[in-house]
């Protein structure tokens, strides 16, 4: 089940959200931004939904706050009414995926959450793959380095050919550097 976090200062919104989506997703709701942070920390949240107008912090500000530590969860802004400035900020500063206005359409919102979750998965999978590849590359480099050492102590080969092999290995190590940089 998709882990969804919903932050809103209005308790009743939280109740109705949970009632609507508890059967489809694992729903986490709270009125407090601080609690929202701890939920993010404790659970692998895939989709974060926040109200824009809250007394202590705006939705955009909340997204800005969590982005450095939790860049992967897909962000969506849910608000009763927002002026154009708030929308611009949400896109540029809050890097939101979708903007949803209240009152929400349940089916639509469900679809959006699922799409967001798919995006999250793609994002995290490609990241994992990248990590996997880089590990493999690193080990290849290490093996090549060992080979290069072995080659240096091999007397059966002529000095010239040893040099040529060694050069070839260095080139390979160098080539493998590039994806490592990624």
């Amino acid at each position, binding site marked *: 089940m998709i882990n969804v976090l919903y932050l809103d*200062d*209005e*308790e*009743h*919104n939280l*109740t*109705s*959200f*949970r*009632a*609507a989506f508890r*059967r489809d997703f694992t729903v986490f709701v709270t009125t407090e931004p601080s609690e929202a942070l701890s939920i993010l920390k404790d659970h692998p949240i895939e989709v974060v939904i926040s109200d824009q*107008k*809250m*007394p*202590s*912090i*705006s939705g955009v500000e909340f997204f800005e706050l969590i982005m450095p530590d939790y860049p992967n969860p897909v962000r969506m802004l849910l*608000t*009763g*009414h927002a*002026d154009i400035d708030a929308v611009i900020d949400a896109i540029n500063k809050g890097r939101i995926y979708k903007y949803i*206005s*209240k*009152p*929400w359409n*349940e089916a639509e919102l469900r679809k959006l959450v699922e799409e967001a979750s798919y995006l999250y998965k793609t994002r995290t999978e490609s990241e994992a793959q990248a990590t996997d590849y880089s590990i493999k590359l690193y080990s290849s480099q290490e093996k090549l380095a060992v080979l290069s050492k072995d080659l240096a102590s091999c007397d059966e080969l002529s000095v010239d050919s040893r040099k040529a092999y060694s050069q070839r290995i260095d080139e390979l190590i160098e080539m493998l550097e590039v994806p490592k940089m990624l």
Partner: protein
Amino acid sequence: MISIIRQFHFIIIVFSIIAFSNNAFSQKYLGLEIELLELTDANVTALTPNELFDDVWVKPNVSVPNLGNSNTWIWARLNLDPVKDAGLHVEIAYATIDSLQVFMVCDGVTISDQLVGVNNTNNRNRLNIGNYPSFLIPSIDCSNLTCYIRAWSGKQLLLPVRIVSSEKILSDGHVRDVLFAIYLGIVMSLLLYNLFLFFSVKDKNYLHYVLFIIAIGGTQLVLNGYDRVFHLVSIPWISLRMTHIFGILGGVLTILFSRNFLHLKKNAPFYDKLFGLLYIPYFVATLLLVLGFYNTSYDLINFSALSIIILIPASIKVWRSGDVSAGYFLVGWSVFIIAVVIFALKDFGIIPYNEATIYALPMGSAIELVVLSLALGSRINQLKKDSELAKEKELNTSLLNEKIQREQNVKLEQNVEERTSELTKTNASLSETLQNLRSTQEQLIQSEKLASIGQLTAGIAHELNNPINYVSSSAVSLKRDFIDVKEILSLIVNLDPNSESLKESIESVKSKLLELDISFTVSEIDELLEGVEDGAQRTAEIVRGLRIFSRMDGNQEIKANINELLSSTLIILRSNLKHVVDVDVDLSENLPDINCQPGKLNQVFMNIITNAAHATTDTDLKRSERSVKVSTRVVTTDNVEVIQVEISDNGVGMSKETQAQIFIPFFTTKEVGKGTGLGLSIVQGILEDHDAKVEISSTMGEGTIFILSFPT
């Protein structure tokens, strides 16, 4: 000019008749028989004939010896026939001899010694008639009877001597008197006539002329010895100088009269200056006269008098320039000059010395005076004509002026009309501008209103969307929850107590309960219902608040409670202020309703509260430290009850300068585009409509307090 000549004909004819037709004037003077003493040092001081030594006697060989003008005593002698001449008189027909002494010497013995002259007015002559001195030749028996004449004069001295009978003296004297009387009559009538004219016309020319007549007449009076006849002057000092005085007066007045009459200053400035210079010799002559230099003075007077010749070219010049009266003037003076020339020629023996030539001067002067009178008369006519011309010219000028003025009036009226139309246009454009301004102002106020409405809509949309959101969402969720509940219920309803499988059925219901987590569903239903209830309530509250607030455009005064208005305003503002500040509200419970325009007051409250909230955001304060307080209370001061609304904040505050300007339209401290600057000016207008007072106290960095006092 012809008329002038015609007038002269008569005068000339009269003059000619007097001069030549009267036998009485063909006199015989004894100049050829008279002997004059040649003066020597020895006899210059002689007082009697006996004191004369080495005397040489000379015959002058003229009928009337002219002894010139010298300051010496002269001696003359005449041998008389003691028989024939006895009882006759020696007459010296010359009136201006100042001292005349006649000795009758019979065979070397002085038998009579008579003195006449200024110093001896009492003993003028025996007969005491006429204007010439005469001396009786005594009847005495002697072989040689000689008449010695000793004479002195401060002026010209002539010796026209006759031996005549007393009858002849008398008759000649009468003739002279009559002639002189005629002359005097002419002079007097001219004098009075011109004096009268002077008083009626007030032309100073006449006064000059009158004085001139006096001078001329006086001169003739003195020259003919009538001053002495009439004993006009009894003081010898003046008597001696009478001739000179009148000569000077005549000259000076001639200059004065001529200059003014001919308008020399204007018509002939050169002659004017020349005449001006002539005063100098007359002044010198006067000085000499006073000092006793009679003869020098007399010479100077005569010399200056010659200058009257200048009058001829001067008057010709003026006459030519078109002045008819100058023609008369010219004629008058010409006649006089001719008379003077005749008179002078006679003195030098060039023409005969007789009564006619003697009378040339008074004659000439009389004619001159008459002609000059005519000149003045013509001057009057000319002046009259001139003045008529001037009047006509003036009339023409005034007519022209009137015409010009009329034209100018028309022009002026045109100008005024043009100006008026310009002004009307300007006025029209001004009122148009004013209207534009007004409509702009209205538009601005409207846009200010729209801005606040926009702000409100945003807030209200948010406020309404939240409850609507969870009410509608809850409805869907509730439906789903009830499906679960219904499923359980149908299971329970279908339970058959008589069935063998009851136990199993119950078990399946139980498992279904667990499967559907019905206990959670039930509690959720409660929560959702609570939300629905709450949402409905909130929506109703907002709608009510909106209803109160939306009376914005209503200008009608109705009874309303300020607390209610404040509450509705705060509901509308809630979502806008939610993330800005918490508003503390402290409303007095027993606030009376007041007559007001609620919509407008809401605008006031919204404006001030929004400003207060914004003021707190411009500080470094965190949201929890910011504060906006709204409170109401009833205050009674001096038995007057007012409702006070206090709105305070702990925001940035205002400087004194800002405080002074906040109610000025378009004044704003916000950035361009963020505010119209009209908010508070509208607020002030609304508060004035409600007779409400505003007190503001603000300190920079500490906050602002608005206190609005409404009369109850």
